């Protein structure tokens, strides 16, 4: 056991790979939050009046809300007036029209992150929308998508170009009054991604967005809205990174998904925000509200997340299964190391008949970290024949980490069927001894064991990202042999 701990601490010592700061000029608001700041933000983006009104309404509502304290996490009080609510890389008068016009320094940043846009464009067939601090920098693959009738653009553009769609759906899945962080986001969201898949269209490629927080003392509040019309299909992936800083930074995003009749949305996240150093200093507060509304009959919403970063994570990608026979899925790998804290899980709200949901959650805790699964499965009165299957597995590495499971089930329909399985295990000394006795490095052994533990979730990820997720786990685990 003693050795195990020693190895754990050694492996835990690896440094954050994406912790560089990009030296570019940027326009940044002074810290502070008030109606004037919101008006300036809206003005800089040349937003229509209704958008500003929407923001201000959300802001006034937010002022009356309390920060939630029920999650199994602890962090110092956030001073919302010490955060800057807008930061954009400075650029010539016009937005870049193509990648060639994008600041080369920025492009190098993305390359360091392992997402050379040009490469992706040609090889992977992935359209990438890259959000840097607060604005969307470049969107590739617009043309072939446009041919299919797919809209894939930044939220700012969508507000300008597709106001009717935005007005119709924004805030319908996650209303401004939903929770404290969603309220804040509604007031100050600076950009994000907008996707619209027309009726009967299968999106011809994986859509992908990379988020990165660069400027100091700024918050990132992106807003994503995906609408899948009848019988359409889209698979969307987001990746996230941030530089190393001693101060905590706030990330409060909102993602809304709308699936109409027979539509399918697959949403995958690889989240690798800066987790803080080995003593728990710095790191991102990741307070995110993600929810999908399976409005249409036979619709399906599937969340897959691989969460390895952030100092504190508060996140519950959920599905509201309103349409009859609609399906919700949640596949999650959450890894915490050092002093990271995660309280994450899902909500499956069964409203329609014969709705079904599956929850597979894999929590891995190493170092001094704390990892909680929190899940709600709810059956409304009209959810005849609904069913849920939940499997919640926790893996502990070393002796100082903690795992918690908080499952909630509420049923107002007697025909609902719920199955719940939960396990907690440790990377055992015997497993480690077997691997090492076969000549395998302790680090590689832990990574292999953890990857095996996560297999059911990884197989849900798009192929190229499954490989990336496996590597990310390996990197995040370095220094944490069990």
């Amino acid at each position, binding site marked *: 056991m003693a050795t195990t701990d020693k190895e754990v601490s050694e492996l835990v010592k690896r440094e954050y790979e994406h912790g560089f700061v990009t030296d570019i000029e940027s326009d940044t608001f002074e810290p502070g939050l008030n109606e004037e700041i919101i008006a300036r933000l809206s003005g800089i983006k040349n937003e229509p009046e209704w958008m500003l009104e929407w923001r201000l309404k959300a802001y006034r509502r937010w002022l009356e809300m309390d920060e939630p304290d029920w999650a199994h996490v602890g962090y110092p009080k956030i001073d919302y007036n010490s955060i800057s609510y807008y930061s954009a890389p400075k650029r010539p008068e016009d937005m870049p029209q193509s990648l060639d016009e994008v600041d080369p320094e920025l492009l190098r940043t993305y390359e360091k992150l392992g997402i050379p846009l040009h490469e992706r464009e040609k090889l992977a067939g992935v359209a990438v929308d890259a959000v840097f601090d607060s604005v969307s920098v470049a969107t590739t693959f617009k043309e072939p998508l446009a041919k299919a009738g797919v809209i894939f653009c930044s939220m700012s553009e969508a507000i300008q170009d597709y106001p009717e769609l935005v007005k119709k759906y924004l805030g319908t899945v996650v209303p401004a009054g939903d929770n404290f962080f969603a309220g804040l986001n509604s007031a100050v969201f600076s950009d994000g991604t907008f996707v619209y898949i027309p009726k009967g269209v299968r999106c011809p490629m994986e859509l992908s967005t990379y988020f990165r927080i660069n400027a100091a003392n700024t918050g990132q509040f992106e807003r994503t809205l995906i609408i899948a019309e009848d019988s359409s299909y889209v698979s969307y992936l987001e990746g996230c990174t941030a530089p190393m800083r001693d101060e905590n930074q706030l990330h409060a995003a909102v993602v809304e998904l709308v699936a109409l009749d027979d539509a399918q949305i697959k949403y995958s996240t690889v989240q690798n925000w800066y987790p803080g150093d080995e003593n728990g200093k710095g790191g991102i507060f990741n307070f995110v509200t993600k929810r999908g509304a399976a409005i249409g009959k036979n619709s399906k919403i599937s969340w897959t997340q691989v969460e390895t970063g952030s100092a504190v994570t508060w996140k519950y990608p959920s599905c509201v299964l309103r349409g009859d026979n609609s399906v919700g899925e949640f596949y999650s790998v959450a890894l915490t190391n050092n002093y990271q804290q995660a309280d994450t899980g899902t909500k499956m709200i069964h409203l329609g008949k014969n709705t079904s949901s599956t929850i597979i959650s894999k929590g891995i805790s190493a170092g001094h970290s704390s990892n909680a699964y929190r899940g709600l499965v709810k059956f409304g009165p009209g959810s005849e024949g609904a069913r849920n299957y939940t499997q919640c597995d926790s893996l502990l590495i070393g002796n100082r980490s903690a795992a918690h499971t908080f499952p909630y089930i509420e049923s107002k329909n007697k025909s609902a069927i719920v199955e719940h399985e939960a396990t907690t295990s440790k990377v055992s000394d015997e497993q480690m*001894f077997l691997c090492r006795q*076969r000549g395998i490095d302790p680090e590689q052994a832990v990574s292999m064991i953890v990857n095996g533990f996560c297999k059911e979730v990884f197989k849900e990820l798009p192929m190229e990202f499954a490989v990336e997720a496996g590597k990310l786990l390996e990197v995040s685990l370095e220094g944490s042999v069990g």
Partner: protein
Amino acid sequence: MLSIKNLHASVGGEEILKGINLEIKAGEVHAIMGPNGSGKSTLSQVLAGSETFEVTEGEITLNGENLLELATEERAREGVFLAFQYPVEIPGVSNMQFLRTAVNAMRLHRGEPEMNAAEFMKHAKEVSKQVDLDPAFLKRGVNEGFSGGEKKRNEILQALLLQPKLAILDETDSGLDIDALHVVSDGVNALRAEDRAILMVTHYQRLLNHIVPDYVHVLAGGRIVKSGGRELAHELEERGYGWLGVKDEEATASSAS
């Protein structure tokens, strides 16, 4: 090849090995027998570098190299192999991936190029036939849901793939029916080579009918109390451990089985 001098080891302050001396030359097969609790398994684990035990005195060298200075994985790469008595499961990690990682770790250490998945698959399929394992089981999780016999055959498969200098077999015969015992013994006999030493740890003599050792040692109370040729095993079968002043009712009772 292997030289053990005055080896003392303890766990939780309790001394289990109390001065072991043993020399094994290349090409030789030695059997260590003894009653339960005599320290047989401890000796195998200590040789392989288990950190459960603390070596308090003595030395272990393999071809002149001090093993006590090497971590478990370094010893493995120098050619020490332990076939486990109770192989542990690693859920979700395919046997194929595990074996290839191990083989490549060794190859890397020897400065040889790594084997890609296709090459390794071909190689592993051939070797798995040698221990009568269906190649389909290479795709299953490491020891996951394997029967006792499959686990033991899997251990021998690993030895055949890794080609160690010193193979330590810890109670490889336990829990095997007679057919599986034949398969496993054939596998071990296939391992016998001029440049390899084999150390078999066993409670029962029956394995030694299939894998005939060059030398037999009796371990009791943490010391080797008697050494001899293969005939010593037969003598133990007939007379039990009692005549050596060693108490072990179970072994006496079951040696006829």
